[in-house]
């Protein structure tokens, strides 16, 4: 019964989130609708050594959710992933004793994996001149750990795959999970991403790239300003987003609440430059998602933009949307929720997918905050500064584009 030629429909039946604006989906979405920013002064002992002292940190303490013994093996990135997965499985009301676990999988995206464990190891070796490392260093630091812990939590015996394509990692993970179920290799999957890279070394590395935003002089929570004339770069964030995906007929049969269907997925590699995106690459990813969904440009009612607040992304993404949607581009609301939750890197697609799905669910569009004067070259409807009610919202597009080139675009639809 499992052949790659099978085509089945894939739905989202549960969601969970750890984010700078809330650690459950209700708080997360109401924060976005109310325009609340999670960007603050970094709370860390190394703050004085940073040039950029702001970030979007998740308010999350591992000891609130895990035992000491569990924590020994869970880097912050895995703690986020497991906690988000627990929420998603509860939300999906899935009885794991009633599914074929051999056909249940996990697909997780992360950019940096266990960044704290890696950093702690180097710190011990180079700063403290220790001659040996803790026994669990490898197990905490490895990129696949978060996915493995999610899979172990629910004894998922199918695929356990980790995608690391920088900023697009989790849209790629969700897209590949969708294809995996669609073509009959799995029936159920946890799909999403996790990132916990706000360590001293990682922030320093980002500082050197000169892509981080300056602090807004009047209010530092306003420092992420996608599409704005006075934007100055991205704000690093951390967190996790996790979806439970299921084959649609099975979800209906068990009476699951269905948030949305994954209608399409497009991915492409932008080979123009290691950091700079191109219109050809970005537009191709959007077109391929539309093609996969068998939808026309005018069927899309909202775009959750990648919208990083860097000059290159915002200009290229605006031009790419115009190329794909032609005259429709000006009619489609486009917003970047990174203005509030920052850039969660390998987790950003997952939390933005949740924002996109909840936009369909609640018929409300989260705004692009801190957009008083748009860059003249960014002339689309960015839903500035205020959420918007929308009566007709059947299909939404969620864009992610990455350093390194991999773009991942998802289309979600009302069921």
């Amino acid at each position: 019964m499992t052949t790659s030629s099978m085509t089945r429909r894939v739905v989202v039946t549960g969601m969970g989130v750890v984010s700078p604006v809330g650690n459950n989906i209700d708080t997360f979405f109401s924060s976005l609708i109310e325009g609340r920013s999670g960007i603050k002064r970094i709370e860390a002992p190394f703050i004085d050594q940073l040039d950029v002292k702001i970030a979007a940190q998740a308010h999350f303490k591992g000891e609130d959710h895990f035992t000491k013994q569990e924590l020994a093996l869970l880097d912050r990135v895995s703690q986020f992933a497991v906690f988000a997965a627990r929420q998603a499985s509860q939300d999906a009301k899935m009885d794991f004793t009633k599914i074929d676990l051999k056909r249940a999988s996990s697909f997780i995206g992360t950019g940096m994996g266990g960044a704290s464990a890696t950093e702690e190891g180097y710190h011990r070796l180079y700063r403290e001149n220790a001659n040996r490392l803790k026994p669990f260093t490898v197990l905490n630091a490895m990129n696949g750990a978060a996915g493995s812990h999610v899979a172990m939590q629910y004894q998922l015996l199918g695929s356990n795959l980790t995608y690391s394509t920088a900023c697009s990692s989790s849209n790629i993970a969700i897209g590949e999970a969708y294809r995996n179920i669609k073509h009959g290799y799995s029936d159920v999957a946890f799909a999403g991403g996790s990132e916990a890279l706000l360590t001293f070394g990682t922030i320093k590395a980002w500082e050197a790239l000169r892509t981080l935003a300056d602090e807004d002089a009047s209010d530092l929570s306003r420092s992420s300003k996608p599409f704005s004339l006075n934007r100055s770069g991205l704000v690093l964030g951390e967190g996790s987003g996790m979806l439970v995906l299921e084959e649609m007929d099975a979800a209906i049969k068990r009476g699951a609440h269905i948030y949305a269907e994954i209608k399409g997925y497009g991915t492409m590699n932008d080979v123009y430059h290691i950091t700079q995106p191109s219109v050809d690459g970005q537009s191709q990813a959007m077109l391929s998602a539309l093609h996969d969904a068998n939808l026309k440009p005018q069927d899309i009612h909202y775009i959750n933009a990648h919208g990083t607040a860097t000059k290159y992304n915002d200009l290229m993404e605006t031009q790419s949307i115009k190329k794909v949607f032609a005259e429709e581009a000006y009619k489609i609301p486009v917003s970047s929720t990174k203005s509030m939750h920052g850039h969660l890197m390998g987790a950003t697609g997952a939390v933005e997918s949740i924002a996109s799905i909840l936009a369909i669910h609640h018929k409300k569009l989260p705004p692009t905050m801190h957009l008083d004067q748009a860059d003249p070259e960014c002339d689309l409807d960015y839903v500035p500064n205020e959420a918007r009610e929308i009566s007709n919202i059947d299909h939404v597009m969620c864009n992610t584009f990455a350093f390194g080139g991999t773009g991942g675009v998802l289309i979600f639809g009302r069921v």
Partner: protein
Amino acid sequence: MESTFELIQQSIAKKLEIDITTIKPESTLEELGLDSLDTFDLIFEAEDKLGIKVPNDEVAVKTIQDMVSLLDKLIQEQKK
């Protein structure tokens, strides 16, 4: 100075967040809920505190007493 047993007892109690008196010499690591990785972690900590090195082929221990005996033997050997 505390005995090797007390040192191990304290490490395990802290790690598992359990009552120290439930850890007895005859307790097996398995019944306490410690797997092979936890054992590595305990031995790593003991090596630091006792200033000894446990060879890789000697880490297979079943009970707390096995671990204490192993560590005491190595202390004797390595402090000569």
